[in-house]
């Protein structure tokens, strides 16, 4: 147990790093996706809807495999970690797009109409009236997305990134102690998720104050 623990800690860092980078990329994709889905232009709306539908409609594992194993065939050479961040980030971005869009369209229509009546442009109304209210609504559900994201970083074990699940699997194989290895990795996952939860709760409190 003492012998394997340092390896688990190291793996936990990889999981944290993966989660962080994936979350950032996911948010960027989600912001672009949300703008596309709410755009005035039909083509952009279609593009956004297609992105969400395809990435939510197929398994994240297959998306990772297409990128990592299929990528070289179309000239995309990535190492496993890079493929993991990009694959998971674009995937979680599709889920986050739906979260953000949901928050924005659930702000009362009257708010936008009132802002427009006051002479604001569409963009001004969005920026100074709709978004601040939507922001408050989207933090908690985005927190749920982040929680799922931390757990879905386990998928990159299948393309042999040495993170928590990969490490657990390796030591289950060599020590024949599946339950103990599961517990070590599981507790580390739950600590990471707990910290993410604290961050989300903090952001939510901040947002409610304004």
């Amino acid at each position, binding site marked *: 147990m003492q012998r394997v623990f340092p390896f688990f800690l190291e793996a936990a860092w990889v999981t944290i790093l993966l989660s962080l980078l994936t979350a950032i990329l996911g948010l960027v994709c989600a912001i672009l996706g949300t703008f596309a889905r709410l755009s005035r232009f039909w083509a952009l709306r279609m593009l956004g809807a297609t992105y969400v539908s395809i990435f939510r409609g197929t*398994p994240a594992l297959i998306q990772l495999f297409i990128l990592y194993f299929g990528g070289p065939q179309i000239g995309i050479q990535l190492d496993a970690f890079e493929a993991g961040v990009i694959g998971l980030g674009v995937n979680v971005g599709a889920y986050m797009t739906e979260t953000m869009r949901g928050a924005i369209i659930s702000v009362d229509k009257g708010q936008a109409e009132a802002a427009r009546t006051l002479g604001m442009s569409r963009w001004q109304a969005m920026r100074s009236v709709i978004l601040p209210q939507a922001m408050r609504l989207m933090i908690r559900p985005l927190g749920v997305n982040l929680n799922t994201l931390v757990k879905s970083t386990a998928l990159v074990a*299948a393309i042999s990134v040495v993170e*928590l699940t990969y490490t657990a699997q390796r030591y289950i194989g060599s020590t024949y102690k599946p339950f103990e290895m599961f517990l070590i990795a599981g507790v580390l996952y739950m600590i990471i998720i707990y910290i993410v939860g604290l961050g989300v709760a903090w952001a939510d409190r901040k947002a409610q104050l304004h």
Partner: protein
Amino acid sequence: MGLDFSVIPKYLDIVLIGALWTIAITLGAAVVSFFGGIFLAIVALYAPAFVRWPFRVFSFLFLGTPLLLQLFLIYFGLVQIGIDVPAFVAGVVGLGLHFAVYNSELFQTSILAVDKGQTEAARTLGLSRMQALRTVVIPQAVRDVIPPIGNNMIALLKDSALVSVIGVSELTLSAQRAIGSTYRPFEFYVLVAAIYYIINLGMEAVLRRVERRIQASR
């Protein structure tokens, strides 16, 4: 190395058989997760503390950890304690338990949301506590929670790809077999993604129909 989709037809039957297995696993795990979810919800709400606590720890562990890790635990853990089950069974049980925990959260809320008067009326009519729960409360609770449970089952379909990692020959693993002999990962994984997408659309259509039926029956 460019793309060449003409290799697909020769392996199409293997992949389609894999797709049937994926549907079978999804259905099996959906049944386990549905009834498992109801069972866990009843335990969480009504069982005495010494029964409730072990289940609470179990739920806590399963909510906080990745499915893939749980699959490794179940697959290797069962072998460890001397139960040598086929990978298919380990996959169905693992997926089923994982989603049972999620469904249980939904069932708990919806059971509590059923009007108290319903239980009281049933008890007045002479039904035992268990009978009232089984014939009056649970059916209403289940009806109210079908849409989110259905969403969980669609998520289950996509997560079923993970059981390929413990060696269940479903859609993903059958594609890997075809890739093993053709070295054409892009073509086969795109094919597999398309098949998952179609099954996914089918499940969504069924779910929407069921939701409409529920709306109409109220």
